[in-house]
């Protein structure tokens, strides 16, 4: 599995001001720390960047490339900023993201070929968020068709099925899983990516890693190719690197219907099992899900 560090983000209390003030130090420190933590890509999220987005993206790509050799995931909804970043990016960049909304699709799809980049295909349609697995299937077919028409091969498209918070409508989370189990049949050779931390949006901060890790393991069962993650969750990185095979097997057995006796498990195992039960919809989410 490839991991994309999410931490350089305009929403962050330290990185936001650094981006706006063009202060390289906090950004370079963070990029260096993410690189050391062992992720494969760094996501640079500058948000919508409506004003001077192109200049900001150029600056942040150059700033980060001074301290790391990792490829970058350029994360903005501003097509001009996207192109500016691609121009100065060394090596093969990842465009994060292109959706089916015409204002994103039309200017950005040609950039994939022009700059020899990979792209994240976000399953967000003209009518917004897909409601179930079937609507995701329709969107992926459309998106891949449009990309193929421009000569973009499936292997360069990383499909993002849109993961939503476990503390909200759990049927949406289930729809995302269901779609992931079908992706390979619908769009062979397409890769996949999720914004993993979305699953724990709305959950108290100290509990978020539990949801993130379990959710990633569940998605691994469906062949998840990559995830945008908190680079500093070392347990998550160990899981992705294959260093916790027993936990992965346990989660997958529970997904297959096994109901282990919680009292026979270690505390850590029990926490994973309880979290999987929430993510499958078997148990209703509450902030105290680990305690009951």
């Amino acid at each position, binding site marked *: 599995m490839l991991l994309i560090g999410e931490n350089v983000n305009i929403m962050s209390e330290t990185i936001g001001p650094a981006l706006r003030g063009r202060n390289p130090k906090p950004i370079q420190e963070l990029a260096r720390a993410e690189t050391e933590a062992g992720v494969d890509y760094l996501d640079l999220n500058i948000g919508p960047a409506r004003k001077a987005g192109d200049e900001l993206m150029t600056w942040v790509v150059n700033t980060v490339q001074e301290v790391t050799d990792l490829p970058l995931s350029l994360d903005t909804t501003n097509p001009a900023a996207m192109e500016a970043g691609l121009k100065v990016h060394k090596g093969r960049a990842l465009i994060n993201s292109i959706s089916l909304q015409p204002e994103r699709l039309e200017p950005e799809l040609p950039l994939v070929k022009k700059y020899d980049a990979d792209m994240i295909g976000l399953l967000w349609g003209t009518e917004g968020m897909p409601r179930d697995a079937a609507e995701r299937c329709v969107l992926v077919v459309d998106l891949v068709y449009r990309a193929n028409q421009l000569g973009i091969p499936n292997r360069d498209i990383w499909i993002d099925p849109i993961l939503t918070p476990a503390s909200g409508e759990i049927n949406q989370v289930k729809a995302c899983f269901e779609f992931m189990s079908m992706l390979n049949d619908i769009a062979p050779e397409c890769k996949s990516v999720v914004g993993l931390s979305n699953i724990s949006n709305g959950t108290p901060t100290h509990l978020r890693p539990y949801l993130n890790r379990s959710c990633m393991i569940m998605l691994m069962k469906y062949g998840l190719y990559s995830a945008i993650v908190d680079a500093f969750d070392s347990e998550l990185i160990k899981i992705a690197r294959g260093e916790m095979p027993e936990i992965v097997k346990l989660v997958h057995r529970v997904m297959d219907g096994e109901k282990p006796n919680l009292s026979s498990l270690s505390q850590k195992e029990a926490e994973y099992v309880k979290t999987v039960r929430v993510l499958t919809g078997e*148990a*209703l989410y509450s902030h105290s899900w680990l305690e009951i």
Partner: protein
Amino acid sequence: MALEIPKTSYSGKIREIRLGKGDKSITVGGETAYPFYLFEGGIPNLPKIAMEVYDSPPEEWPEAALEPFAGVTDDPVAWAKKCINDYGAEIICLQLISTDPNGLDRGADEAAEVVKRVADAIDIPLIVWGCSNEEKDTEVLRKVSEVCQGKNLIIGPVGEGDHKKIGASAIGYHHTVIASTPIDVNLAKQLNILLGNLGVPDDSLIMDTTVSSIGYGIEYCYSVMERARMAGLTQQDEKLQFPVICNIGKEVWKAKEVKIAEKEDPKLGDARKRGILMEAISAMILLLAGADVLIMRHPEAIKLVQEMIAELTAE
């Protein structure tokens, strides 16, 4: 081949809780099937209706709502007795509207004194509903708990912010707690967990998942109640196996659709009939979503709902 009607498989049961004390106490809950699914399971205790009494004379009620209580609206004890003697109330809900800091801001001692007088004057269960200001409710409901020790009042609303203090005093003085959350099944479950952790016994908790009138988002309230009931009955979710209480009367009677006079907008029709029907229909919808206790206002709306309960549960 004979047609086999599919049946829901239930694995859980809603807890039974006893409201009030003595001969006139009332047990609610205990369902083993979805609301009125008598063909799939049991409803050992039919849903009950509590009649509202206000602790200060209502100011903005439409004429239709005031008329049944003419002459008693300035005296909560007389009002409660009228509900019992004239309208056959089985439960009273005293709405402590006067304690609202944005209104009369009546103090805790005075409010508790009124509660005590009503509690002493009646022998049916008494619900005491605060003003939904966490700080003020904490002060008032703690005092109410204390002065009414042993009466097994049903007190609320108790939210996440004030659950510790109000919950602790309810435990200490043996009252039932109304766990209130804002139209969100996950938060409802969480508050029940927190109250359980605090030590509120499972047989002393009733849930209020927040309701509103038809036309004001009742469908969202319905979905949350429905989802909670599904979790409790089919997913063995013990933290959602509590009866549900709905404070619906006051939601309906504040809607502009019950306040507009017929002469202002003739196409809306008779104002009295309109208010009664709006309350009755809102209440009926909540019954279908799983309400165990409805807090209602107009005697005729109550009668309509009782008739429906009787019809839906007739042998």
